């Protein structure tokens, strides 16, 4: 199964890189852009059916791909 994992900063965690991107967007005239948060996107291929893959992906996210202290995660499983 192909999988896509999205790791994002929890609300309230400082995101200086997101802030810098927001300032850059404003300086380019995109004044309508707000609340920019920079996260991570990870693609991978997982063995097993969709249910097995989802269970394993959840484990992967909790153990390694995201740091629960500062990050949230979600993933999509599918071909």
């Amino acid at each position, binding site marked *: 199964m192909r999988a896509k994992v999205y790791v994002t900063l929890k609300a309230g965690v*400082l995101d*200086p*890189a997101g802030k810098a991107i927001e300032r850059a967007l404003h300086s380019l005239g995109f004044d309508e852009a707000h609340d920019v948060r920079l996260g991570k996107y990870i693609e991978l291929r997982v063995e097993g059916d969709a249910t097995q893959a989802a269970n394993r992906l959840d484990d992967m996210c909790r153990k*390694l*791909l995201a*740091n629960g*202290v*500062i990050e949230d995660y979600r993933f999509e499983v599918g071909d």
Partner: protein
Amino acid sequence: MRWGVVTFPGSLDDADARHALDALGEPSVALWHKDRSLHGVDCVVLPGGFSYGDYLRAGALARFSPVMESVVRFAADGGLVFGICNGFQVLCESGLLPGALIRNRNLSFICATVHCRVEETDTPFTSAYSQAAVLALPIKHGEGCYVADPATLQGLEDNRQVLLRYVDAAGRATEDANPNGSLRNIAGITNPTRNVFGLMPHPEHAVEALCGGVDGAGFFRSVRLTLSEGLPARTASVPPGL
């Protein structure tokens, strides 16, 4: 007593840490990341650098190395673990210390000498210092901004686990004296049982006058004193405000 200094792929300050220990007359051995044995050392140092390239997150991959399994068990048994810079990041990722270290507030890698105040002296890592001593210590990091949720921060304060704060030369923990945006100016913390210590400044780069100062030597002396003379008695103290 004997010190062990871990080398992960990407560690940079492992040799410097051993050099500093040598300069202080402390015997040390090298510990390899693939080695599960800690070779009977009394204190494990996790040095600075970019373990495993700091891929994914700083310290995230080092935590799964074989030596870390032994370090986690060693810490659970009360062994002393001393994490410097990347070592601090590894300790947070391992769950041996609470919170996390994220990108510096100004997005820049900072290489500078800063002032830090010793907040607690009844710990194995700080007993050689006087309370509220102001130290000049080098920092060099891109991800040194300490964050934790409000409940964790309050717990750290209530249990007096904040051992080191960024301050100005007069010892005041001001916003201007905070180099990286760390919450509550936190530069170093310990765990509830006070046998694991992590800090972003580099005491191993501050043990010889020739290299700019000796203010970092006290951390190593504290560990030596603790292991030879026992733990200092815990004192009740008023938590210093910001």
